């Protein structure tokens, strides 16, 4: 079967972007509905469930404001996602000090016992991501979940590529313990 399910969806997105950039709020609502699950999942995992709703709203408001700057040289989804990551990282920086104070010592996390097996493995895996030390979690989400390259992550986070690689490996080694549940 040669029919592609993706094509019509992408078609709708491009048209809606053009309309939304001209001030069409209904077109923008359709863009919101198409992308909200991905954006909300990103914010929920990078920050916390408590912050995810508010930050997701911030991201879409910012997107609306910046739509006229979207040049179409990348896919809209890619552009939106990059904007979302920037908002999230900005937010993390703003709250970095409080966050560090509240976060448990990474060394303690490394030595945590393996979580007991649960029926819902996906939830267990998600939960385990939330337990990663902040730096490792960030890189793991950006690289393995969201598909960014180390050099992109290095720029986003303002770290060396080598740091991004080390954090990723650290995260994966910790996540290993949650595979056999």
């Amino acid at each position: 079967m040669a029919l592609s399910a993706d094509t019509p969806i992408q078609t709708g997105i491009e048209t809606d972007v053009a309309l939304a950039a001209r001030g069409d709020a209904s077109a923008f609502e359709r863009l919101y509905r198409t992308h909200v699950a991905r954006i909300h999942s990103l914010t929920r995992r990078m920050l916390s469930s408590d912050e995810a709703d508010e930050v997701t709203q911030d991201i879409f408001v910012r997107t609306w404001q910046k739509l006229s700057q979207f040049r179409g040289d990348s896919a809209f989804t890619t552009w939106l996602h990059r904007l979302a990551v920037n908002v999230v990282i900005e937010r993390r920086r703003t709250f970095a000090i409080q966050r560090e104070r509240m976060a448990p010592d990474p060394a303690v996390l490394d030595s945590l016992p393996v979580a007991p097996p649960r029926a819902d493995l996906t939830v267990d895996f998600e939960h385990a991501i939330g337990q990663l030390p902040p730096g490792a979690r960030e890189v793991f989400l950006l690289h393995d979940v969201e598909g960014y390259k180390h050099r992109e992550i290095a720029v986003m986070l303002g770290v060396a590529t080598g740091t991004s690689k080390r954090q990723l490996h650290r995260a994966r080694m910790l996540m290993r313990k949650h595979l056999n549940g």
Partner: protein
Amino acid sequence: MHEEWTDKLSDYLDDELSPRERQAVESHLRGCAECAAVLDDLTRVVERAQRLDRRPPRADLWDGIAARIETRGAAPRRVSFTLPQLAAAAVVLIAASAGIAWQFADRAASRSADIARSTEAQSRASSGYEAPAEREPSAERSNIDIAHVSFADAQYDAAVSDFEKALQNGRRRLDKTTIAIVEHNLQIIDQAIEQARQALETDPANDYLSGHLVDARRRKLDLLRRAAALTIESD
């Protein structure tokens, strides 16, 4: 565990090693079951991460966003229709929704919605009033059941041709990017329609294909309608 080797395994997995390092890792892996098992685990971690599902928020966040994009001076612009344009648009919408054989969950309700929409449109038109740019019948049609599609659908074809004409007439008022997007999308949709039509000839009872065809045709009409609306947008 050989940390000096396992520390290289993520880079190995991501193809970040030099050819020489890569070879060294590979030859170690051939002789070390323990490190090979770690690599296997890391591979599974990455696969699991890539498969994580994306869940929407529990609450609908749109209202909060809509409130903020309207109150910050970025209110959506409105498009002025002339009376004949508006009347024509209303007629076309009714023709289109009646012409395509959709079976609405509640046919009566949706018909009256269409009539209400056209009545409202006409009354705004006759008072020379501004109409909102967006009239969105497609949202209501997203959860419909499809009965069947008539290929030789004169009314649908007429609606499409009306919009094509409107688009052609107003083409100069669209920027190049918009024209390119619209034309590109029309081409894709036409291909999808043609594919579905051909596939249905060999498998006429296939509900998925019927749905796909109806959807593609709806998209085409919707795209043309919105593109035509852009051509009459006033600044």
